[in-house]
C-alpha cells in the first residue's frame, strides 16, 4: 500500500468514525447560514455567539484527534502499522477539508447570495479562513498531546486567559511590532510551523502531555495574535497612500518628542496644579498634498488614544489640531501616568474645501472623474484588515486603475447606527431569509462647501456577519461588507460639487458622527 493509498484509507476510516461530529457541525453551519439574526440585537451578542461557535469548531477538531488520541498509551492505533505522518495528514485533511473547507464553501454561497462578485470572494475569505485555521491547528496541536477533552478545555481556558493578558499588553508592544507585512506573514508561517511541529511530536508520542504543551501552544497563539493584530494597528494608518496630487493624506500623527518628555515628567505620582509642564499636548498632524486653502473639518476629526493601561479613548478634535491635557483629563477623569498616550488610529478626515478650490478642481476635472470611477463600480477591494484599537473596525483599500481609495469602517459605530438607520431611513430594508448580517441601503450625502445643500448618494450595502456566520473570526461582523453606490449615470457627471463630495461620503446629520469616511487620493493627470 503506497503512502497516498494509506492516507486515503486512513482518511476514510477517520471520516467514518467522526461522521457524527462532522454532520453535526455541518448542521450547525447550515443553521448559522440561514437562521435570521435580529439586527436590533446589541453588537456584543453576534461577537459572543461567533466566539462560542469558533470555540465549538476548535473543540470538534480536538474531538476528531481524540477519537484516536495519539497520547493515550492504550490507544487502538498504538500498535498498528500506520505511520504518524499518515495519521496527522488524515486528521488535518478531515478537520480542514471537512470542517473549514465546508465552512468556506458555505460562506462563498452566502456571499454569492449577497451579490458579492466571485472575483472578490477570495479576498473576503482569506483572512477569516487563516485565523480559523490557526485556531483549529492549535486545537489539533493541544489534542495531540492530551488524553481527554477535559485536558484540551483546560488548556483552552489557559489560552484564552493568556490572550487576554497579551491583549492588555498589546498597546505597549504594538509600536515595536509594527513590522512590514512580509514579516508578519513570516510570523504566521512560523506559528503554523510551530503548531504543526507540536502536532507531529504528539503523534510521535514525544513530549509528555500536560502543562508544557499548553504553554507552548499559548505562546504560539499569543505570538500569532500580536503579529497579526498589533502591526495592523499602526501599519494601517502608516501605509495610507501618500501619493502626490490633490487630496488629503494623513502621513503621521504622533506625540511630539519634547512634549512626551514633559508629560512623563508631569506624570509623577503627585502632579501639582501649578506645574509648569501643564502645557497642551500638541498632536502634530501632517497633511500632505492639501491644496492651499483646505481646512480640516475639525469636529469630524477623530483620534483614538490608547492609554498605558490599554484603554482606548476615541475623541473628536475641536480646537484645530491641539488637544489639551486638561480636556483629556476631564474626559477620562484621570491623569496620565508613566507612558504618554499613543495615537493609534489614522484620522478620518472629511474635509471641506473652499469654493475657490472646488471651482479649480472642477475645471481640472479630477474630482468628477474620481467620483465617476468610484460610483461606476470600477473600484474593487484590494485588501481588508482589522484595526485593533477599535475592536470591531475594519479598513479596506479599494483600487482602480489610477485610483486608490481607503475606506475605514468602525463596527462599534456601524452596528448600532445601522440599526438606527434602519428605523430612520425609509428605504432601509432587511432581506428576508438571509438574516445573518444585513443588506439594505444607506443614504449618504455629499455636502457642498457651505453645507447648505446636499446630494444624496445611495449605497447598497450587504454585510455577511462573520461574527455570527459560517466563518466566525475575531474581526467582527463587517468583514463581508459590500458597497454598491448608484450608477454614475444617475449622478451629475461634471458637477463641481462632487469634487468636494469626494472627501465627504456620509452626511453626519443623518448618521450621527461620520461612521464611514474615505480618503481619496487623486493621481496626477
Amino acid at each position, binding site marked *: 500500500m503506497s503512502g497516498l493509498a494509506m492516507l486515503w484509507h486512513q482518511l476514510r476510516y477517520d471520516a467514518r468514525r467522526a461522521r457524527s461530529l462532522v454532520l453535526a457541525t455541518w448542521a450547525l453551519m447550515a443553521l448559522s447560514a440561514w437562521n435570521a439574526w435580529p439586527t436590533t440585537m446589541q453588537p456584543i451578542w453576534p461577537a459572543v455567539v461567533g466566539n462560542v461557535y469558533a470555540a465549538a469548531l476548535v473543540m470538534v477538531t480536538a474531538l476528531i484527534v481524540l477519537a484516536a488520541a495519539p497520547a493515550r*498509551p492504550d490507544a487502538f492505533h498504538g500498535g498498528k*502499522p500506520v505511520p504518524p505522518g499518515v495519521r496527522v495528514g488524515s486528521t488535518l485533511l478531515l478537520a480542514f477539508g471537512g470542517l473549514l473547507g465546508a465552512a468556506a464553501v458555505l460562506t462563498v454561497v452566502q456571499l454569492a447570495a449577497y451579490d458579492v462578485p466571485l472575483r472578490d470572494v477570495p479576498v473576503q475569505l482569506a483572512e477569516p479562513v487563516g485565523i480559523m485555521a490557526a485556531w483549529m491547528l492549535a486545537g489539533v496541536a493541544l489534542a495531540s498531546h492530551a488524553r481527554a477533552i477535559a485536558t484540551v478545555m483546560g488548556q483552552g481556558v489557559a489560552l484564552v486567559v493568556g490572550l487576554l493578558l497579551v491583549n492588555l499588553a498589546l498597546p505597549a508592544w504594538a509600536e515595536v511590532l509594527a513590522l512590514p507585512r512580509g514579516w508578519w506573514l513570516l510570523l504566521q508561517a512560523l506559528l503554523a510551523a510551530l503548531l504543526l511541529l507540536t502536532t507531529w511530536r504528539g503523534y*510521535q508520542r514525544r513530549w509528555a502531555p500536560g502543562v508544557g504543551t499548553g504553554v507552548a501552544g499559548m505562546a504560539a497563539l499569543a505570538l500569532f495574535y500580536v503579529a497579526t493584530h498589533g502591526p495592523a494597528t499602526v501599519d494601517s494608518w502608516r501605509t495610507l497612500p501618500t501619493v502626490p496630487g490633490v487630496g488629503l493624506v494623513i502621513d503621521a500623527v504622533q506625540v511630539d518628542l519634547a512634549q512626551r518628555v514633559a508629560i512623563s515628567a508631569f506624570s509623577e505620582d503627585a502632579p501639582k496644579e501649578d506645574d509648569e509642564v501643564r502645557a497642551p499636548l500638541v498632536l502634530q498632524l501632517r497633511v500632505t498634498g492639501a491644496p492651499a486653502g483646505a481646512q480640516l473639518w475639525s469636529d469630524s476629526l477623530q483620534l483614538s488614544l490608547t492609554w498605558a493601561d490599554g484603554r482606548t479613548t476615541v475623541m473628536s478634535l475641536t480646537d484645530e489640531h491641539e488637544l489639551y491635557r486638561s480636556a483629556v483629563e476631564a474626559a477620562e477623569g484621570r491623569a496620565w501616568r508613566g507612558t504618554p498616550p499613543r495615537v493609534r488610529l489614522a484620522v478620518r478626515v472629511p474635509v471641506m474645501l473652499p469654493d475657490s478650490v472646488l471651482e479649480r478642481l472642477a475645471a481640472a476635472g479630477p474630482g468628477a472623474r474620481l467620483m465617476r470611477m468610484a460610483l461606476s463600480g470600477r473600484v474593487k477591494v484590494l485588501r481588508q484588515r482589522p484595526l485593533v484599537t477599535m475592536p470591531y473596525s475594519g479598513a479596506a483599500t479599494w483600487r482602480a486603475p489610477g485610483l486608490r481609495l481607503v475606506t475605514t469602517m468602525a463596527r462599534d459605530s456601524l452596528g448600532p447606527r445601522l440599526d438606527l438607520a434602519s428605523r430612520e431611513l425609509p428605504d432601509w430594508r432587511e432581506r428576508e431569509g438571509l438574516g445573518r448580517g444585513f443588506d439594505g441601503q444607506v443614504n449618504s450625502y455629499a455636502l457642498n462647501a457651505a453645507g447648505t445643500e446636499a446630494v444624496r448618494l445611495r449605497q447598497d450595502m450587504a454585510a455577511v456577519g462573520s461574527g455570527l456566520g459560517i466563518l466566525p473570526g475575531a474581526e467582527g461582523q463587517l468583514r463581508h461588507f459590500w458597497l454598491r453606490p448608484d450608477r454614475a449615470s444617475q449622478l451629475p457627471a461634471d458637477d463641481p460639487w462632487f469634487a468636494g463630495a469626494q472627501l465627504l461620503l456620509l452626511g453626519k446629520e443623518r448618521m450621527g458622527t461620520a461612521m464611514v469616511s474615505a480618503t481619496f487620493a487623486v493621481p496626477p493627470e
Partner: protein
Amino acid sequence: MTSPTAPALEVRGLTVRFWRTRVLDQLSLTVPNGALYALLGPNGTGKTTLLRTLAGISPVAQGVVSLLGHDRVRLPLAVQQRVGYVAEGQQLPEDLTVRHLERYLAPLYPAWDAARSAQLLERFGVPLTRRLGALSRGQRMLVALWAALAARPALLLMDEPFTGIDVAVKDRLVEGLLEVMADGGVSVLLCTHDLAEVEMLADWMGILRDGRVVHSAPLEQLRAQVAQETGQVAVTLKALYLALAAAPAAAGQSEAA
C-alpha cells in the same frame, strides 16, 4: 527482510524513566524465533512499560531494541506490519463493528489472512455486526487477539491478555494461540500473571524484577534448575515462579538466544 538467524526479539540495556523513576533499568532480553516466551514478575516491575516500548508506543530512550532483526527506532513499515500487539484493556474503535474493523485492518497488513480471520472469528464466536463498544470485556479481548493473529504476525506482543476474563474465553484465547503457534512462523512475548495459561503455552520463561530480567531460560531448564536446588522431584509452575522471583539474579543471566 527478517534475518533467519536473528532472534525474534532482542533487547539490550533498555532503560526507561518516568521522571526520576527508572521503570526499566538496563533491561536485556532475547526471545528466540518460534518461542512463546512468558515474562512473569510482580506488579509494578515494568512489564507493561516494556511491552509498550517494544510496540513503539513509548520511545526508546536508552538501549537497543531489535524486532525481527531491525532496530525499533527505525523500524521499516514492512517489519512493523509483522508485529502484533495485544494489551489488557486496549482501546478499540467502539463505534465500529468487527466487519468494519476488518475492512480497515486488512489493507494495512499485506499478510492479512482472510481464511484465518474467518476461522478465528468462528472459533471466538464474536458477534460480527455489533458495535465493539457494546461487547463484553472478554469479547473485546478476543477481538484484539483476532485482529493481531489474522495479520499473520511474525512477532506477537501480549500484555496481560487473560486478566479479568472468564474461563471459557480464556480457553478460546489459548486455543486460538495454540492453533496459530502450530502453524509456525510466529514468536510470542507474553506478559502475564496467569500461571495456568503459561503452563499450557510457554516454552520459555523470564522473571522481571526491579526493571530487569533476572532469570531467562527455557521453561524446562528453569524447572530442572529449581528442582535441583530445592530437591523437589516435580516443580509446579507456581513453585518455580516463587522460587525464581525470590532468588538472586542469575549470574550473567541464564537467557540464551
